């Protein structure tokens, strides 16, 4: 009798274990290796531009429910995969062709910075609640490669070869080896305010970091030594761009400032008549800079002279960085629309509606536009008809 009872108990435990394993197994992140992944070196800056020259209308091909909203993160597109972090601290991997979920794993309380991919390693910045706020996940092995203890990270991870650069919540810049997890150096900016904008590689030897108080820090990439510091006197919360050896910095008081990282010389590229206007992160196409603003205008200016090339009213505030694609620029608005603009004059050639506000950067890769929108959807727009929807 007792033996029988033990057997029942064991069976129940086994069943419960299987259930846990089954359910838990559904919530992991494991991808098959692909040729592209073998050489992948991908971060927010290395994605989002394309050379698509046609100005055809795009069609929504699929949308994917990521189960939580998105911070100002950029979807990462590698071969057949789209990798998206959400504000619930999860990273979702989606089949690029079908929009079907390939895997999902929760890494922390929230992710508000764009991860980076180095080969099959995913470098994930975590926001709040974690002592080890940088996690490196082996995508093919489905295991943690290593974790780095640092205060929460709000900005994107910058990848430069085998090194990743991260700014933590105490405004300390960390350089670490992606393969070993060893810290090459740390550099304390001693900034009184946090850093939201992603660090940027100016050239092979230098990094630029801009804190939210408007201080620009030029750091030597080899050893983290601070080379110079400039003040632009405005709040900076969005990513900035670099082009023609200039930093193109958007501010929350309606200005776009070009700064020479060598001598700190600034050149006002744009100034809104309304200082409450906030500018989106700019993107560059040659010498041209395209950016949106909360006044509902998308502007294109010359990155050297600041001359306005065009401006287009898109009918709703723009907080997300546009995506450039040859003759086109794609813009997402807080008014639930995504638009295609002609680069030569800013006129709208295509428009579509999504389910919510767009506040994350758009990505255009290989004739496909990827859009993150509220409440929690990733869209793929492309040429041709829609692809059968997969309920998630």
């Amino acid at each position, binding site marked *: 009798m007792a033996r029988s009872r033990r057997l029942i108990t064991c069976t129940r435990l086994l069943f419960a274990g299987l259930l846990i394993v089954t359910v838990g197994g559904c919530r992991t992140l494991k991808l098959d290796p692909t040729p592209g992944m073998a050489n992948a070196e991908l971060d927010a800056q290395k994605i989002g531009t394309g050379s698509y020259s046609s100005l055809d209308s795009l069609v929504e091909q699929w949308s994917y429910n990521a189960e939580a909203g*998105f911070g100002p993160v950029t979807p990462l597109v590698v071969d057949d995969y789209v990798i998206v972090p959400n*504000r619930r601290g999860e990273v979702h991997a989606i089949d690029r062709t079908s929009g079907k979920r390939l895997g999902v794993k929760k890494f922390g309380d929230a992710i508000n910075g764009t991860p980076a991919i180095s080969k099959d390693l995913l470098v994930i910045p975590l926001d709040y609640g974690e002592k080890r706020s940088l996690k490196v996940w082996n995508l093919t092995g489905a295991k943690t490669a290593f974790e780095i203890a640092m205060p929460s990270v709000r900005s994107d991870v910058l990848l430069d070869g085998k090194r990743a650069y991260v700014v933590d919540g105490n405004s300390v810049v960390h350089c670490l080896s992606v393969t070993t997890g060893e810290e090459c150096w740390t550099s304390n900016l001693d900034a009184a305010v*946090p850093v939201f904008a992603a660090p940027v590689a100016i050239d092979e030897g230098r990094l630029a970091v801009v804190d939210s108080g408007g201080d620009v820090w030029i750091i030597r990439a080899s050893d983290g030594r601070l080379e110079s510091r400039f003040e632009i006197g405005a709040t900076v919360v969005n990513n900035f761009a670099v082009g023609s050896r200039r930093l193109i910095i958007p501010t929350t008081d309606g200005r776009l400032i070009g700064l020479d990282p060598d001598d700190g010389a600034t050149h006002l590229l744009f100034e809104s008549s*309304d200082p409450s206007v906030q500018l989106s992160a700019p993107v560059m196409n040659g010498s041209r800079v395209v950016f949106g603003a909360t006044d509902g205008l998308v502007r294109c200016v010359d990155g050297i002279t600041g001359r306005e090339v065009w401006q287009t009213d898109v009918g709703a505030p723009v907080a997300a960085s546009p995506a450039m694609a040859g003759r086109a620029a794609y813009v997402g608005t*807080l008014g639930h629309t995504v638009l295609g603009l002609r680069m030569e004059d800013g006129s709208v050639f295509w428009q579509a509606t999504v389910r919510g506000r767009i506040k994350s950067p758009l990505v255009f890769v290989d004739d496909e536009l990827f859009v993150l929108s509220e409440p929690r959807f990733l869209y793929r727009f492309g040429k041709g008809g829609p692809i059968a929807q997969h309920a998630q």
Partner: protein
Amino acid sequence: MSPTVPIPEARFAAPRPRWNAGLCEWRNAGLRLAILVALIGTVVPESHAQYYIFGRNKVQYVDFDWHVLRTEHFDIYYYPEMRELAEHGAFFAEEIFDELQNRFAFDLSDRVPLIFYATNLHFKQTNTTPGFIPDGVGGFFEFLKGRVVIPANGDLHRFRRVIRHELVHVFTFNRIVRVLRDYRKPIDRFVPLWFTEGLAEYWSGEPDYNHEMVIRDALYSNYIVPLESIYRIEGSFLMYKQGEALCRYISETYGEHAILELIDNIWIDRDFRKVMEHVLREDFDVISANWMEWLKEQYYPDLRNGEFPSMLSTQVSGKGFSSKPDVYIDSKGQRHVFYVGNEGTYSGVYEVEVDSAYQPISRPREIIEGERSDRYEAFHLFESRLSVSDSGTLAFVTKSGARDVIHLYDVEARKLITTLDFVDLTAVYSPAWSPDGTKLAFSSIDKSGFSDLYLFDTDQGKLDRLTQDYYDDRDPSWSPDGAYLAFSSDRTSSSDGASYNLFSYELDSGRIDYITTGERFDLSPRWSPDGSRLVFASTTRDSTGRFGPQDLWVAELGSRSAAPPSTASLNPGSDTLAFRPTVVSRLTSLSGGAFDPSWTRDDHIVFSSFEGYRFSVRSMGSVDSLLRKPKQIARIGLEVKQKKWSFGKLGIDDGAEDLPYRKRYRLDIAQGQISQSASVGTFGGAVLAFSDMLSNDYLYLTIFNTAESQRGFLRDLSASVTRVQLHKRANIAYGAFRFAGRRYDITDPDALASLPIFYETQYGGFGGISYPISKFRRVEVSSSLSWSDKEVVGKERKALLLSNSVSVIHDTALYSYNGPVDGWRGGVTAAYTTDLRYSNVSYFTTMADLRYYKRLLPGVTFATRVSGRWNQGREARLFVAGGSWDIRGFRLFEIRGQKMWLSTTELRFPILNAPTLIMPILAPFGIASLRGAVFFDAVHAWNDNYNGSATELREIFAGQTLGSTGGGLRLNLFNAIILRYDVGYRYTNGFKTQDRFFKQFFFGVDF
């Protein structure tokens, strides 16, 4: 500026009972509940309401013809009389929308409903909130329907600022909801009130002079509340101002973006202190300490030159709240100071006698008892001055029914002379007597919502309109020769009207001239007795750009009495006018503020002051010597721009769409419940409530089922539908119902006293009208017709029941933390219930309940209640009593009978007062107040012929006088729940038997 415009409808009313004037009002604050309970009471007529739903009435005096103006982002609800104001409001809303969209970097997904009222008095009638709206409320945002409700009240700048304030709330709320949904957190947290209100103030515009005055006074008088205990002043005016200062500090110290970061990080913890620490990267204590330092650094340097009103002047009245003084010297030369105020309870007009040095020689005496009668329904404590003529006629304003009225009161004879009621004027402020005592000048807001000056000739009964434009003209004062009025207005060209300057109005020509100019707030002018000067309260910006204290100033008008006060006129002309400067002298340099000065014949200035978070009436002598050594002399206004300021409008011509308002029900509440019990099986149900955008029309649906088996599903299905209409003065409710199933009813005379459970099916319809006679009285009439099929102890009874009832309810009680503290309330009811088909049921009901409260000392109240109830006839229901709310020492509803009288008497006294500024110790535990009571209760219940078995009579205590005596504690937690603990002895058998000692714990407010 326009010549006088007669108002034909103006009437000069003789004193009369207010109910005869037809100026009555109603709506119970808990209206929906009241109607529902009352009507459900009639749905089941046998269980007629055991208790009155007391409460004052929120009366819908005006049947507003609502329209909707649709702009790009807003649906603006307005009525045609205020069309122009609504178009200004539309412009302001769209203007701020773009700015907030930028500031928040956020876009609203839905259109925002903005409901505008022309005046505060119209605003008080809104159904969008069930509670009463006090004078100081400038508007509110209600998140269930996402609507904003705002009155204009004559001041376009303030209207604009309130719209901005409320729209900051709309953006804040929507962004927080979005953040929580993004992070998949439940919407169970919000930023603290100090932050949301402080941010709304901060992003509405620059800090106004009230902000500066309160913060300065709080620092100097040492009652500023540190950040860690700011919950102590939750919801107070001080909290708003401290919250604004905190948001400014955060913005200046950590950057403006830190404000948004605090909102965006609300998801990380329900404790906002942790959010602050995370975002601002400092310990909470450090943030708090640094903020305090920041405040001190800004304001303490001014203390060097500041004078405390209490050190500079003589206190005439300092008890409670007192302001708006005026002086009268009677035929015997005795000086009297009159003012509006309160001593912690009702507001009224007070009189205090003073000697030649304006030292009080008598206790303040309340000569007009306000807030207890229809005639003196409410005072505008901060808005309206009073005036005493040389012949001793006091003119003051109260709300009385739909409008404000001016009362004329003979201070010598101590009687009301008359009440002036102007049909076309909604709000009335600050009447001022002409020197000959025959005319009254005052400011008023008509139905259009703009504030203008009016003149009323008391001899001829004629009302003239002196100005008619969108400027805010206020506080007129007569020159001693009666030729001019001085008044304060925002019609100035200085800072595009974002200032108030003084102006003169020449009564013969209607010409308006500047007296002062510049970026100042010059308010409440009064002439000196010789007419050569004006004393007024004013504030200007100091060297830091902040508004300094509101001080007493004097403007020199020339040596000749009633000379034209300088200047260039506002008549059309060139763009800029040369302007002979007016010399103004600042008499004081106060730490707090001065208001409403009045210059007496004997060289004193009587005024109200703000110090130590309190308004008091004070006097200052030797004005001439003060003028010889003023704190500051200024020559102001060398030139003024001729161009008048104006605000934009957004109407149909600008693309807006105008539509009539159509009611559309939207879901307010949906609640379901299912439960299972071993004895009664599974049962469950749901309640749905719908209402329209203006909350004038409610629809309630309930459905529940108590079936114990599948076959009984239809048999035991209960459902009801009720519609309640509130848009007219008479509130109407009607509906239909079907109730079926096993019922527990201790009032059913057929049920067993020990286990009053039986099965009943009842269906029918009901209707009721609740008509408010005034704010304090109403009549309720209800009727129901239903079929009843009842099974009790093997007996089946069928009946077609008709039940009618009528009640009259009066309530002037004044509430404090734990219940009423002053006034009285009462109700009488007559009802009849009969079975139209079988005559199985036929009984009448009469009930009366009277409750009286007398405030013996501050915080100490004597309360007594007597109640009689009588049900007579076939199947007459039982009344119930017992429990902590009436007869203590007995279980809840333990005492039952078809007839009953009861009496309770109580002395209520404070043990620990509200832990606000003075008593912060218990606040962290949520204790709002701790009070004590000693009581004596008595009751007698009986039935026809004392029927029933001996066992049952013992069980329900019928046929004997019972009671109890003892004491108890009342603990108010979080201002939300009151715990009651009583101990004492209970008595039975006509108080001959001391039954036992009891201890009783319950909750609820005092009777």
